[in-house]
């Protein structure tokens, strides 16, 4: 269960609309089921009361929407940010991607979001309703007479299991208690990959990436991917989007993307959340984060606005390319 309630969030939004602080509210909108939630712009108390939701399936990170919405909308926007969302928010500000003055950010606590795929692994398909009961979800399916109780903890999204921070690094106003950054085990999976032989590692990624359908959802949702014209949309780049011309190019897409967001990726995990093929794309980015930490010292993209990432900040203490190579050899 989330620490803060839907009613509290609606009341906050309604109050800020009423006193003129904001004109729009970026929030989660209810869907057909209890878990298919769509980001939406709300303008009135009526709309909020009718459709606003806040539950264990509100995973979407709104930060990237601010890039388009602040340009399009003619007034201040209230955005609710979970702790991990605030890192993307800061990173976008560092890159001057939206006008901070047009945003009113309210930090909200998050106890982790459930992954509907994991819920379905436990309860099967055919879910007719999901109710929150304390720290559990009561899942009713059309195949069972009684609801199945599932502990939220057991169906948390990967990124929430490895949550890096319960602390908000950006907000105008905070609701509830702020948390701390956490010592997560998020690099354990990367370490496992590093421990593989090159052949094993190649086989691992071959298997995962062979499922890619090149839908571009990972890129389109990624808060680090805000280029006005993406290289994969450029017909003369030779790596245009759409179909892989061969299996090599399919991997190139993800590898190029990982390189492009290296040092800027906050590890928000949206890429893996939206992947229709459950490819653990975050591991590619996390490998870069781990390397950066090890080569240049701890660095968390988005922890503060305006910080210079190690990859764009030359110092004489920087590792020489040769040293990186040596290190790779001992690691491999």
């Amino acid at each position, binding site marked *: 269960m989330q620490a803060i309630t839907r009613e509290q969030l609606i009341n906050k939004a309604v109050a800020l609309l009423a006193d003129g602080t904001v004109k729009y509210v970026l929030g989660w909108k209810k869907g057909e089921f209890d878990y298919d*939630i769509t980001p939406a712009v709300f303008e009135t108390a009526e709309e909020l009361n009718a459709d606003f939701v806040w539950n264990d399936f509100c995973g979407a990170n709104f930060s990237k929407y601010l890039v388009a919405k602040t340009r399009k909308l003619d007034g201040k926007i209230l955005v609710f940010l979970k702790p991990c969302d605030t890192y993307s928010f800061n990173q976008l500000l560092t890159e001057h991607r939206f006008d901070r003055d047009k945003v009113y950010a309210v930090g909200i606590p998050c106890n982790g979001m459930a992954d509907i795929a994991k819920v379905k692994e436990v309860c099967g*398909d055919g879910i007719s309703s999901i109710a929150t009961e304390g720290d559990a979800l009561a899942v009713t399916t059309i195949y069972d007479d009684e609801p199945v109780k599932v502990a939220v903890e057991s169906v948390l999204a990967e990124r929430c299991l490895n949550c890096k921070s319960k602390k908000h690094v950006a907000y105008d106003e905070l609701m509830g208690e702020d948390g701390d950054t956490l010592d997560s085990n998020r690099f354990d999976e990367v370490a496992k990959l590093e421990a593989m032989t090159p052949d094993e590692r190649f086989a691992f990624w071959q298997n995962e990436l062979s499922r890619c359908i090149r*839908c571009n959802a990972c890129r389109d949702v990624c808060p680090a991917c805000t280029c006005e014209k993406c290289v994969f*949309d450029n017909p003369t780049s030779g790596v245009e989007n759409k179909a892989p*011309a061969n299996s090599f190019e399919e991997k190139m897409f993800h590898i190029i993307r990982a390189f492009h967001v290296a040092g800027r990726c906050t590890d928000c995990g949206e890429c893996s959340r*939206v992947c*229709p*093929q459950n490819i653990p794309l975050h591991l590619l980015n996390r490998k870069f984060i781990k390397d950066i930490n090890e080569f240049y010292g701890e660095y968390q993209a988005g922890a503060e606005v305006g910080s210079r990432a190690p990859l764009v900040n030359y110092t004489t203490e920087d590792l020489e390319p040769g040293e990186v190579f040596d290190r790779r050899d001992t690691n491999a």
Partner: protein
Amino acid sequence: MRKCSLDSLNAVFAKIAEAAELYLPVNCTDGSAAFSKWEEGKEWSNNLNTVKSPKEFFFPQTEDLVAFKTSGKNIEIIDTRKEREDFVVFGVRACDVKAFEVLDNVFLLKEPYDSYYTNRREHGVIISVACNRPADTCFCKTFGIDPADPQGDISVWKTADSLYWQANTERGAALLEKIADLTEDCDTAAVDAEKEKITKIMSKLPLANLTTEGWGAGKTQELFDSPIWAEMSEACLGCGTCTFVCPTCQCYDIKDFNTGKGVVRFRCWDSCMYSDFTKMSAGQPRLSQKERFRQRFMHKLVYYPENNNGLFSCVGCGRCVAKCPISMNIAKVMKKIGGKENE
């Protein structure tokens, strides 16, 4: 009708695979199912739904059309087409079988025929399976599809211990003949019971009451300018997920790929959700995601029916409902824009 025990399924698959390449849904390492070529040791997934639809057997995501060699000012055209070998696709759900009809109308039945598609269609045998475990995202019934009675060359019903086979076409009968040693004659009692069970499940689905009311041929003027398109497309990422998991989406791009030794002209799935889909050097008729989003649904629910005697080009497979990153989908669009909620 013929029957075999589930225990003997491996032998049946082996027998079919002797005659032709056999494809069926198998489990992937991430727990989802995908069509894969059968070989000894591969098992039919319990997961009836696959992330990618079987349309790729006839309309692959990428395929070479023709090749060129250039030297100086000269060009040589190389026809790279080959006759497809016979193949069998096992375990296709009723919705996905219906999707082949949608694609046939475009590629097979309207001149000029698509020779690439036709070639594959002529060599593919479809074994469908009755869907006894529809998901919450399913709404095939909305489009008049009965998951208990799937079409295709052969229909198959699965019960707790057996598989029941019924040939619907000559090709299907010929294939059943090949596995006659491994199956036995039976009556339809078990299948009838299974059908009844499926029908009961269908009525319980969350989208059971979704209708096509308000949609169909002739609705362009009424629906095109609805203000709700803007609202519903607001959060659309413009990715191609819905299009690429869709069993009926048929748009494609044609591109050249320089292999270093020559040029291969290939086609690949394209998405009307992509901003460059209609972009020309002279301008862009669909300026924002609203227009692109609208195109996808108008095409499936209005334009396509107009050109195909009222047939909708959605089969309610639910893949886009399950996979959209922002959970916006055709079911929501149908209800909100065409349905009663709009009144």
